[in-house]
């Protein structure tokens, strides 16, 4: 823990240095980013709109991380969930039709379910490649990310393109009846937030209070010993992929029905990677996800202020995030390497 906190502090210092080097005051930057995240109802709404899918992804990743898996394929699981949700929306509300074949709330619900199924499919594919194909889950996941994006691009540029248009900027927006309701005029949707919070709550309970969570942690900490003790290791690994895919797929569906109202190539908005970062920072303990995810959602939204009011290259926020990730990993590594020695 000491190493993690230390690494975090060092990363903050380095971030400050980068900000100073790019010609701004760190304090101004933090102030602007804060006001950019919480200054108006719109901004708070957007933080919440980012938080919801992030919570889902992070909750899902708790399972894979605890099972000892680096599920980098979470991005692809979001994307494929979004594709599946879009498919259902298009089937139930064909382009040009004045109304959907099912009542809009049912259509939206089915789209979210479809998103979950799509994510599960993609998650299990990575799981099968890992468990049966003995491919590192990292490479399997990254490969499937490319595949999912490729499919999305193909659909957007091909069969699902806007009438008369072939642009990668996305499919035709869905009818407004199929948009998830929001808090007032903001972009935050209660449904997404509730789903995110439910997923997180379930995850906390499962990891702390169920045999399933215990077995998952056992497998993640020592696959061989767990197996010897009689834990069905393969089933645990596949379950972890299943649940993570499910949550990520639902997040993808919510991106479609709640945020973009259409399918775009980068529908995941890199929230899967952000989720990885969040879960690593909280050391796989779901109880801390909510505050950390909230912090990163605010950072994500507030960073728009960098070009807007400070004239800073907005990729600076990428640098900030990157440094946090890097040092979170270094801190983890150090803690694993030397932390044990210290304890003895």
């Amino acid at each position, binding site marked *: 823990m*000491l190493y993690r906190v230390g690494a975090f502090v060092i990363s903050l210092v380095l971030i400050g240095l980068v900000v100073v080097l790019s010609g701004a005051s760190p304090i101004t930057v933090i102030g602007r980013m804060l006001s950019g995240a919480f200054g108006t109802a719109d901004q708070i709404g957007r933080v919440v709109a980012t938080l919801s899918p992030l919570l889902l992804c992070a909750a899902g990743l708790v399972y894979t991380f605890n099972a000892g898996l680096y599920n980098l394929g979470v991005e692809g699981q979001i994307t494929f969930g979004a594709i599946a949700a879009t498919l259902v929306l298009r089937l139930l509300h064909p382009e040009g039709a004045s109304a959907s074949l099912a009542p809009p709330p049912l259509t939206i619900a089915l789209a979210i379910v479809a998103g979950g199924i799509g994510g599960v499919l993609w998650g299990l594919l990575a799981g099968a490649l890992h468990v049966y194909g003995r491919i590192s889950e990292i490479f399997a996941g990254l490969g499937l990310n490319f595949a999912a994006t490729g499919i999305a691009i193909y659909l957007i540029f091909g069969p699902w393109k806007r009438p008369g248009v072939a642009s990668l900027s996305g499919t035709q927006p869905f009818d407004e009846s199929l948009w998830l309701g929001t808090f007032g005029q903001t972009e935050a949707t209660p449904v997404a937030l509730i789903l995110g919070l439910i997923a997180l709550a379930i995850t906390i309970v499962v990891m702390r209070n169920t045999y399933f969570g215990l077995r998952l942690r056992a497998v993640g900490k020592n696959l061989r010993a767990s197996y010897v003790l009689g834990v069905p290791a393969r089933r645990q690994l596949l379950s972890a992929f299943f649940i993570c895919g499910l949550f990520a797929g639902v997040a993808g569906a919510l991106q479609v029905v709640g945020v973009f109202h259409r399918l775009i*190539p980068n529908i995941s908005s890199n929230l899967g990677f952000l989720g990885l970062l969040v879960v690593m920072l909280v050391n796989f303990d779901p109880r801390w996800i909510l505050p950390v995810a909230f912090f990163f959602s605010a950072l994500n939204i507030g960073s728009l202020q960098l070009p807007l009011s400070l004239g800073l290259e907005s990729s600076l926020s990428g640098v900030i995030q990157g440094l946090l990730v890097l040092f979170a990993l270094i801190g983890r590594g150090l803690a694993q390497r030397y932390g044990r020695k210290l304890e003895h």
Partner: protein
Amino acid sequence: MRTKRLKVLAVSVLLGLLASACAAPPPAAAPAQPAAPAADQTFTVGMVIVGPMNDKGWNEAHVEGTKYVMEKMPNVKFEYVDKVNPGDRPNVKGSQVADELIAKGAKVVIFNSDDFKDDALETAKKHPNIVVIHASGDYAWKEGKNYKNQPNLGNLMSKMEPGWMIAGCASALGSENGKIGTVGPLINEETRRYASAAYLGARYCWENYKKRDPKELQFKITWIGFWFNIPGVTLDPTKVADDFYNGGFDVVMSAIDTPEVAVQGKKAAEAGKAVKYHHYDYKGGCELAPDICLGVHYYNWGPGYLDIIKRAMEGTYTGTWTWAQADWKDLNNPDTSAFGYIKGKALGAENEKFLDQFIKGLGDGSIDLWKGPLNFQDGSVFLKDGEKATDQQIWYLPQLLEGMEGPSK
């Protein structure tokens, strides 16, 4: 227990850092904001830009337009956010950026890409007191197909079709073998009519000035999928341009926002290939490779923006669809013409004469290429013999024209 306490410590350190950051007064060295008294006179305009501001293309041309406005009206201030696209800013939508700009005091918001049409409409609905301008688009065109009755939403577009005809003409004049390639962005109504206009210009000049058989003219377009390269998502325009240059096309036209066609053309020319290129969007486009540049048709957004912003300040602007015309008397006049044309070195003196003749014809109406007989790419009739195209027919061109190579949708 120990780890728990440390975690609490870590979070409180973090929160403390943030809190102290809020509480601390901004240091004196922080960049000073415009003085307060001027604030009530300063009129802020926000601009949502799809690509990089300095792309030597479409986006930079818009920024040039804003500079023109600020020159003429010193109390107008622009706020920009560039690279608003899902590749560069994954979790950001155009409408969100507009919200931010409005929160910062923008009274007018300009979206500079066709891709923002949904965002522009959403913003206009959400902020009825803000003037929303969508550069390109047709939601404010009463006679158009997609009219949305949204009084604070307007469209501004330069009528660039004649510019594309001139570009096509210059390319045909500059080509020896009649193989003209075009690196196109994505396919929509705008890009279809532009490509078709270029083809019409090229065919006219090939036939009438070069006295060559139109059948010898090969006019091919490859769409990359977006206005500029998004690695892994679009086709790589560098590669598309190279494929043209290496495939025997001696003239390549750029129809995208960024300068890959010029850059690769320069490389090909340096490698000894007899190739030329035609640039688009940005006035300085020929400076990228002067010796092989045939010309550039560029947007001049300044006068259009100036007019709208003036009216918005007076409170008299209502959403209209403006298809801004060129000044045929003085094509490169920054105050009057909606687009300009600069001839490149590679055109040559004799061809320059032909091109001037062509421009003159377009200007006085003696040359009208949107006139039948014209067929669509699939062979169906677009315009019967002698029939002239309406604005609607041109704007909503459903297909490329017969004789062109490349997908229509």
